């Protein structure tokens, strides 16, 4: 066990090295580039026994990564923003093929105009595809989660690909002290790779030709969905086992911070959850009964876990760092839809903030939470979707 100062990107690279990935195929895009550069260095200095395929585009990156995974080896790729959009066709194909692999997404906004800063549009855009989708709050979680994802995706109860989001620059390029587990620890945590089938000359197996029975095809889609639901327990088990080995737990699908007697909840995903923690501490000091629900996994969606926490809340505020334009923020949409399924009639407000990389501080988070809660208490809430541009600029 060694502590190093690592950026989020280097934490990803270290995790991939510890997971003994065998094939890496990636195309550079800011701000993912340093992941691949560090991995290239590991490979060329003989520290990681893997093949790097320096592909011609992100589309080829995921295609080659998947080809290797279908051939029976642990594989990895990473991208952001436009790169992720470019490979979107393959994202669907990988999930439907049920071949596990892991991809890091350094979440970056989408143009035009060109913009390298963070928001969650790129990763949220993948929600329907059948992948396991999670986001990290800090670099230690990044490293730990990449390793956990190999265990989760390769579990026979799951057999689906997984992606982890880390915010552009805020995590990817910011240095934090990160504990790097030993190779022995990771070896004891990660079983040898398993997958539902392998493309091999040992048997004439065909993947993907047109099905004769559409009911059978629809059941494949059902199988993806139900495997994601089943993944919930696999995720929590992976978290518990990691805690036993390292003393670190992230709560599984969600983490509750100061939720015990909370009446007001803020809910969010990603790096700014760290700022939300500070805001919760500050607001608690000011007398608010406020708690934080950090959503780690948006797919599978932790519907029951969230429902059991917010059942008796007065108000929930969901922070989204992207918007499903014309509707609302994607996390808000999932939270409210599933709360409704559970018969929970708690009011929820959606705050759309931090899009296109616009920075939001923890004091600004406290400010907007107070503004909303105080209006709500007075019965003066103008809307339950608000765009927040920082300072005192709220657009209802």
């Amino acid at each position: 066990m060694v502590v190093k100062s690592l950026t989020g990107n280097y934490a990803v690279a270290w995790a991939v090295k510890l997971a003994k990935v065998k094939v890496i195929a990636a195309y550079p895009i800011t701000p993912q580039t340093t992941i691949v550069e560090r991995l290239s260095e590991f490979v060329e200095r003989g520290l990681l026994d893997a093949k790097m395929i320096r592909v011609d585009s992100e589309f080829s990156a995921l295609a080659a990564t998947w080809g290797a995974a279908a051939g029976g080896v642990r594989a990895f790729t990473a991208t952001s923003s436009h790169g992720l959009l470019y490979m979107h066709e393959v994202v669907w194909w990988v999930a439907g093929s049920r071949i596990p692999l892991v991809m890091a997404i350094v979440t970056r906004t989408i143009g035009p105009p060109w913009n390298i800063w963070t928001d969650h549009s790129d990763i949220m855009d993948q929600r329907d595809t059948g992948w396991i989708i999670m986001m990290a709050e800090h670099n230690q979680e990044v490293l730990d989660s990449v390793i956990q994802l190999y265990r989760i995706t390769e579990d026979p109860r799951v057999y689906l690909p997984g992606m982890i989001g880390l915010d552009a620059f805020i995590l990817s390029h910011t240095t934090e002290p990160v504990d790097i587990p030993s190779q022995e620890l990771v070896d004891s945590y990660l079983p040898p790779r398993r997958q539902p089938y392998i493309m091999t000359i040992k048997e004439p197996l065909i993947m993907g030709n047109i099905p004769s029975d559409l009911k059978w095809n629809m059941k494949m889609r059902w199988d993806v969905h139900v495997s994601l639901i089943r993944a919930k327990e696999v995720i929590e088990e992976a978290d518990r086992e990691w805690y036993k080995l390292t003393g670190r737990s992230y709560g599984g699908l969600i983490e509750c911070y100061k939720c015990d007697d909370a009446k007001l909840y803020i809910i969010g995903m990603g790096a700014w959850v760290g700022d939300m923690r500070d805001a919760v501490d500050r607001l608690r000091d000011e007398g608010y009964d406020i708690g934080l629900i950090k959503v780690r996994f948006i797919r599978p969606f932790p519907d029951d876990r969230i429902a059991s926490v917010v059942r008796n809340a007065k108000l929930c505020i969901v922070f989204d760092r992207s918007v499903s334009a014309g509707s609302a923020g994607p996390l808000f949409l999932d939270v409210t839809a599933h709360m409704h399924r559970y018969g929970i009639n708690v009011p929820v407000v959606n705050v759309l903030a931090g899009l296109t990389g616009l920075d939001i501080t923890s004091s600004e988070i406290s400010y907007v939470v107070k503004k909303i809660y105080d209006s709500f208490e007075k019965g003066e809430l103008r809307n339950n979707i608000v765009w927040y541009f920082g300072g005192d600029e709220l657009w209802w």
Partner: protein
Amino acid sequence: MSEYVKYLPLAKPKIGVAGKTGSWRTERPVYDPSKCIKCDLCWLYCPEGTIDVGVSENEYVRIDYDYCKGCGICANVCPVKAIRMVPER
């Protein structure tokens, strides 16, 4: 496989995957062993692989009429016209 994951987009090789494609024919190849020079060209060029050669002394070529689509390539390439196409009905 997995005892959990039940529905995978997989297939195995199968003869007659499109059914008994012999029903597609409007013409059928008819083989005359007396003309045959055993060159194997009909076997080589048949797109479906419905032709077997070296079957027996008296009948070198055998055509599987369950699957022969009646394209006529075998008759076209035979250098001695040992195969000719006749109307199916």
